[in-house]
């Protein structure tokens, strides 16, 4: 009896070890042979995939989920017989974590939508994404965009929509009611804000409940920084220029501090969310929202024609002569190297940036800035705010945000900005802390700073 038991137990434990080993080795092989298995499975997918419907999985951020995007996906299914299964992830650091974990554990979807610029570089794109530089459809994509989605001479992404700006969105009705003028300097903006506050409205909408939104006043200040210190990005990437030793860059933190000190934000700024901020702006409870113009189509979807009451102006600098917009390149859509449907995904991409797809996108969600695709113009009937930003583009008073001209962005910037805005930290302390954060990121990227 005991002997039988012993046998049984030995067998069970061996089975157990075997299973565990099998589990380990399996995950090893998928991560190390990712490139080769991806391409071989891709070609087998091609031979059978022309008639049979293919289903691609796609991971996108919640704020990228617009009606226009859904319409293009529906059209792709109709035309190419490629079904797209969309999976949503949160935005900001939480979403970055989802993407990084999925990539590291080999469980990424076929297609993934993620920021371009420094945040993409932090993912080590060469290792995880298919190189698109040889694809014919990439010729349509402007070089300015390719630069922010390339590494080691390879190009990894197509743009998911038009470019956009990070600026101050404002409610024009409140400006009319109070007889205010669009500010040209930071002091004028503060004066306007004090008047709005005195009128019993929220002057500056703060939505620290979703912490990425707290960074706008510093990120959107980059046009101003660059105008005064043109080599900042280069010096910053080399580890020479710091926020704490560059007064022009430090201004960004100081502006957040000033907004906090003057008490310009809504009472619940520490916990309010992006959706609540958008609602306050659209309904005229709040006058200013430092934000990306990507919020416009969402306002249109939720609050209809109120989007026409929203205007935009650049984050003002300290001098009326420096006045321009900080531009965000569109996020990119990348193909996972381990996907079994690389060829279908390429077809998907080719269609996604075709004129037809852009037309469909526009008919549902209008552009939020100029396109980065050759020959595509911003349509006449765009949102009022987008029309307001066009003169800056036409006169060349625009510059990309720092994260598109340097590969380094410290991961703790959102938390640092909320600390400053809620007055737990001064601008100078924040700058020092962020410099350390940037240094850690530079080390992780393998940049030699010593």
């Amino acid at each position, binding site marked *: 009896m*005991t002997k039988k038991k*012993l046998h049984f*137990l*030995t067998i*069970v*434990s061996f089975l*157990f*070890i075997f299973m*565990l080993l099998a589990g380990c080795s399996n995950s090893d092989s998928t*991560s*190390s042979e990712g490139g080769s298995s991806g391409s071989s499975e891709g070609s087998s997918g091609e031979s059978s995939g022309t008639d049979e419907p293919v289903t691609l999985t796609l991971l996108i951020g919640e704020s990228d989920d617009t009606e226009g995007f859904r319409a293009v996906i529906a059209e792709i299914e109709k035309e190419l017989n490629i079904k797209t299964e969309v999976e949503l992830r949160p935005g900001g*650091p*939480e979403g*970055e*974590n989802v993407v*990084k974990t999925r990539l*590291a554990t080999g469980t990424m979807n076929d297609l993934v939508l993620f920021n371009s610029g420094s945040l993409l570089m*932090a993912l*080590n794109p060469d290792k995880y994404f298919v190189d698109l530089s040889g694809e014919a459809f990439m010729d349509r994509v402007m070089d300015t965009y390719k630069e922010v989605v390339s590494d080691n001479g390879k190009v990894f992404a197509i743009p998911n929509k038009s470019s956009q700006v990070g600026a101050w969105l404002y409610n024009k009705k409140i400006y009319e009611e109070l007889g205010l003028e669009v500010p040209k300097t930071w002091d004028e903006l503060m004066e306007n804000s004090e008047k709005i506050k005195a009128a019993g409205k929220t002057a500056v909408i703060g939505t*620290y409940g979703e*912490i990425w939104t707290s960074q706008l006043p510093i990120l959107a200040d980059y046009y101003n920084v660059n105008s005064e210190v043109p080599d900042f990005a280069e010096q910053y990437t080399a580890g020479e220029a710091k926020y704490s030793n560059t007064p022009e860059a430090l201004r960004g933190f100081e502006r957040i501090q000033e907004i906090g000190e003057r008490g310009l934000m809504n*009472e*619940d*700024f*520490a*916990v309010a969310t992006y959706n609540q901020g958008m609602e306050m702006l659209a309904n005229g409870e709040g006058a200013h929202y430092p934000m990306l113009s990507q919020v416009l189509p969402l306002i249109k979807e939720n609050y209809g024609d109120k989007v026409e009451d929203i205007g935009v102006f650049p984050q003002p600098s300290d001098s009326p002569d420096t006045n321009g917009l900080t531009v965000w390149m569109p996020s990119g859509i990348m193909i996972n190297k381990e996907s079994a449907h690389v060829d279908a995904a390429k077809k998907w991409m080719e269609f996604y940036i075709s004129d037809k797809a852009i037309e469909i996108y526009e008919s549902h969600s209008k552009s939020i800035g100029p396109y980065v695709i050759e020959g595509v113009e911003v349509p006449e009937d765009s949102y009022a705010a987008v029309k307001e930003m066009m003169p800056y583009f036409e006169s060349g008073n625009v510059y990309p945000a720092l994260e598109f001209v340097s590969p380094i962005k410290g*991961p*703790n910037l959102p*938390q*640092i900005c*909320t*600390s*400053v805005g*809620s007055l*737990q*930290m001064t601008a100078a302390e924040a700058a020092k*802390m962020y410099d*350390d954060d940037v240094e*850690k*990121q530079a*080390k*992780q990227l393998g940049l030699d700073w010593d």
Partner: protein
Amino acid sequence: MKQMYPYYFLIPAGIIYSVFFLVPTAMSFFYSMTWWTLDDWEFIGFENFVQFFQEPSLRIGFRNTLVFAFTSMGGKAVLGLLLATFLTTKIRNKDLLRSVVFFPALLSTIAVGYTFKSMMHPTNGLINSALSKLGITGPNWLGNPDIALFSVILTEIWKGVGIATVIFIAGIMAIPKDYYEALKIDGGNSWQSFFHITLPLSRPALNTVIILALIGGLRNFDLVWAMTGGGPGFSTDLLASIVYKQYASGFFGLATAGNVLMFIFVALIAFPIFKFLNRKEVDL
């Protein structure tokens, strides 16, 4: 002495324990001394530990972790003991009341976190709306950096007091009735019955509650993350959430070093307390 069970009975449990605990623990000690990108590493000695100690939010993290662990432990132990004493007396609907007290322990922490987060909203939240009906202006529970941590602790106590109560009820029920009868014959009152019988004789239960609540508090993460995400700023960051953020930023070696430090930190606090409490136990 003859063994009641042969040693090979330990194999299945031993394998599971090694594969899922011992091996990863040993590996984490190694990776904490590397610069690690999950599939590539470089040995850098103690640099991660040095860097972790330079982390500016770390001081807040250590302080908050201690405050969180001890305050929530105290709250759970005191409230749990009082509730248990009350629920072991002769009252109506005893079973119903016991279930009600235990109910929060059945909920998912994340669900509790999100529910309290919306209830604690400064203007639209249930708590402040109710307070304003009474003419009181409620505080900005989670938005004010000075009290945000305590709001989370209150929620943790609400959630954890059920388990503490159940442990205390079991402890109190195990006290032989003779002691109470003897006290009654000697003419003791209910205060004396609590302080001289219930409290000292439920010591084993109290120790269990203290240790469980303390360790749970030291490594708490989910509730804080659901309610504040460590914010506003860094004001409610605990050690675990600092480690999580480093991991999320892709600083894998550094985050592992943080975990090793947290392991040592929890052990340094929990073991002496455990020893101390066990010495004070009285036999029934």
